[in-house]
């Protein structure tokens, strides 16, 4: 286990438990991250959903003539 931990630390994983795939500047080897196809789709759809939902929310009541008025 100690050898595994040492190996992982040389790859630059800063937090072995619970935070895999964390990149560090101190990495000796480069940490590769690539979206698998499914994750790429999921992230893309989520991005689109975030855009549509937040835009709908931000546009609520935006048609008021003036709502940032000095008082």
């Amino acid at each position, binding site marked *: 286990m100690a050898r595994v931990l040492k190996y992982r630390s040389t790859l630059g994983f*800063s*937090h072995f438990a*619970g*935070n895999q*795939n*964390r*990149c*560090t*500047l*101190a*990495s000796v080897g*480069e*940490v*590769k*991250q*690539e*979206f698998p196809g499914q*994750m790429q789709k*999921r*992230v893309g759809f*989520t*991005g*689109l959903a*975030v*855009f*549509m939902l*937040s*835009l709908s*929310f*931000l*546009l*609520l*009541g*935006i*048609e*008021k*003539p*003036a*709502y*940032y008025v*000095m*008082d």
Partner: protein
Amino acid sequence: MTGTGNTNPEHPPLAKILIAGGMKLAGDTPFGWRLAAAIFGSLTLVAIFLWTFLLLDNYLLALIAAFLALLNNFLFVIARVAMLDVFYFAFVMWGLVAFTAALTLNISIGRRRILLFATGVMFGLGGACKWNTIVTLAAVALVVVFFYLRDSRHLRQIGFATLAVAVVLVPAVVYCLAFWIQCHRFHRPFTAGELVSMNMFIWRYHVNCPGPPALDSPWYRWIFRTSPERGMSYLMGNFVVVWGGFLALLTCMWRFCRSLALPEGLVTLFYGVNLLQWVVIPQQRTMYYYYYPCTVFLCVAFAIVLGSMQERRVLGMRPIVIILVMASVFFLYCYPRMAALEAPYDCALGCWN
């Protein structure tokens, strides 16, 4: 839009062109004035989600960062008024997405180069909205130099010349091209002299013009400010997000000093440059809403720290759930004022003195 001349020459033209585009699309109405800002606010949230995902490789934490940004009150207010900050910062965030993807994804050198050029384009567009873009671009250049000197993240393979073109030349060219649109529209010559003249005006205006005294707020008061900015939709940072995020940022800073972790380092750097720029910028007055970019980095810092607390329980609940509920409650409390709801809804959750 009406061809009556540039009545607002104290900033570069792109954000105003985008606002005009919204008005062209939806009419010269309150909805048309603010449509483009709302679209760019939403684009900023998508960029926050993608940037956090690239940094942490964690889908849930990326969503949490975007959700916290929506609840931090700044994005909600800024994206619903026709001001320039939402535009320039949307480009900044998309530039950071492209830059971080170039650093972290396992892709070919050619694609890394394309992403770095996209970074330059985004920062150029951001600069063409508001000059403050340059501080984040300078921080990006600093990160590039750091990794280049360490021979890390494939930057040596990309080449110094390509890096210099992507981070310096491309933003400058894109910035200048935005002025071409303005010159073309107002029948002005697009020459070096004209460009210098327009930019000198921007500089002189901001150095000499004091700005509105009613909105004046020094930068060191923004972090723990407790009173709303009544002159701007009762803007007041969500205490849960901006104060909790500030503590999270201090944690990130400490972690970065210990382990040189990339996500912690980047949020600390970008928060720091966006706040401390106001120490050196020779502008006579500063406004509370200038804190907006910093609050976005606080949300990402919060997500990073919450990610490392996923196993913990407070009163039998995950800290993430508690924070999201508290942030939502605070946002709802502020919502009637920020959204200018009319009576009786304006005081539905308590009146503000």
